């Protein structure tokens, strides 16, 4: 690990000012950052410890939603009874990720900003456009079984690893931030992540020193919420494919649908195509299959990850079948 200066922040304004320096980084749970620092993939000269900031509460909003502080641990969010009753999708997604030890330490803001687990990003003996801009992307023709099939570029096919963010994307969550100049803004979670394009090392729209202070969940929409994750082992593994679905069925017709995929793209992949195919259609296997075909129409495999395309369609069908209460 490279040497760094340690600063314990006592207020948001000074934390943002300190972290605005190009070699500085915020640290909270540290479950991803400390690992990356040991491998010298991340080499900050200064760490700004934000864990003592008052951002660890879950509060009701006047609209009937919840505001989850950026420092609320993944465990605390998943076991909160308001989340479990009103946003079971979010509890399920968080509990599907990592281990309890990691969830106890990892935070809401940090989960959103965790880095990809692409094996080439993690291997400092290999090229990686995300780690060393311009060095190339060996994943394109390499071991790309875990990599993305939607929305990526010829410079980077890394997948976003979060489960929590997939559920939040289906729930239309809003990310609330504060910038070093004190200004606050609200970013729809679907617009937090930047497509890799020619700059895969720039992963979010956040400015230097801009701090995520909370995630706002609007009131849950009607319908049954289901998170389903497919992975190589039954627990403590990243998703090959996951689906967050909210399905509102009226009689035998779909009245409203929300669909987001994990493991397929640089961000949680909300599928307007799948949702459009579902609304007004019969709640049936044929409709769910049609939604899957619409969702993956523009998908492209890179060899080892070709299987993700049919797997995503089948996982969507299984998730919607469960959400519709069909057997």
């Amino acid at each position, binding site marked *: 690990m*490279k040497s760094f200066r340690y600063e314990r922040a006592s207020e948001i304004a000074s934390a943002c000012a300190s972290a605005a320096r190009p070699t500085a980084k915020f640290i909270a749970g540290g479950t991803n950052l400390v690992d990356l620092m040991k491998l010298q993939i991340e080499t900050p000269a200064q760490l700004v410890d934000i864990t003592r900031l008052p951002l660890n509460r879950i509060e009701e909003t006047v609209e009937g939603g919840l505001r989850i502080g950026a420092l609320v641990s993944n465990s605390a969010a998943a076991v909160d009874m308001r989340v479990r009753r009103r946003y079971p999708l979010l509890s399920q997604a968080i*509990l599907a990720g990592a*281990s309890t030890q990691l969830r106890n330490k990892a935070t809401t803001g940090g989960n959103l900003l965790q880095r990809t687990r692409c094996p080439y990003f993690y291997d400092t003996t290999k090229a990686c456009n995300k780690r060393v801009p311009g060095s190339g992307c060996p994943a394109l023709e390499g071991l790309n079984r875990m990599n993305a099939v939607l929305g990526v570029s010829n410079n980077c096919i890394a997948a976003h690893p979060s489960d929590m963010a997939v559920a939040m994307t289906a729930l239309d969550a809003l990310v609330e931030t504060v910038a070093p100049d004190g200004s606050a803004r609200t970013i729809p979670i679907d617009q937090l992540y930047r497509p890799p394009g020619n700059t895969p090392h720039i992963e979010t729209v956040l400015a230097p020193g801009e701090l995520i202070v909370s995630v706002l969940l609007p009131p849950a929409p009607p319908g049954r919420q289901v998170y389903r994750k497919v992975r190589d082992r039954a627990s*403590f593994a990243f998703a090959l494919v996951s689906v967050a679905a909210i399905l509102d069925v009226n009689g035998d017709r779909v009245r409203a649908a929300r669909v987001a995929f994990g493991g397929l793209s640089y961000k949680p992949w909300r599928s307007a195509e799948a949702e459009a195919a579902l609304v007004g259609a019969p709640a049936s296997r044929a409709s769910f299959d049609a939604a899957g075909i619409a969702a993956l129409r523009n998908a492209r495999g890179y060899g080892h990850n070709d299987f993700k395309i049919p797997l995503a369609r089948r996982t969507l069908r299984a998730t919607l079948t469960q959400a519709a209460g069909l057997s």
Partner: protein
Amino acid sequence: MSTRRGFLKTTGAATLALASPPAVGETTAQTAPAESEHVSLTINGRQYALNLDPRTTLLDALREHCGLTGSKKGCDQGQCGACTIIVNGQRINSCLALAVMHDGDEITTIEGLAEEGALHPMQAAFVRHDGLQCGYCTPGQVCSAVAVLSEHRAGWPSHVTADVATAPALTDAEIAERMSGNICRCSAYPNIVAAIREVAEGESQ
């Protein structure tokens, strides 16, 4: 007293003397060496005042600075769970925690579970059910298992809980899921589950 650890230290030093000198340029080229930070920890009820390089993980602070070598370094990247300890009532991977960030925290390690020489019920159950072979992962397994029971008492659901709004019974499937952050290379899993089940059933009676 001659101990296994003392022997390893001696032989380790001999090996180091034969190796080429360490490259000092790496840490000095980019930034000046970090100033040491004062860190106060309460570990197993005892106060420790330490001066640490901010890079020091909680695991290294325990093992190398406090002499508490019960917590083990397996993968050092949060995947194996051998370093599991309980901080402010919650289990974490101490290998991914910077000690300086835990200033003022209350820590329980495997050394703190036994009371006055009597094994903690979970330790005794691991012995009774043969919940180990080589034993390297065991301190982390036991700390995790103790935390599993308190999480379950608090009504936490898990990934295998059918309805996350309910507090589930601690079935074998629930125990296995909740223990998935602790890897056992000897694969003593059935006996580990049996040990945890026994302690959980004893508590609920």
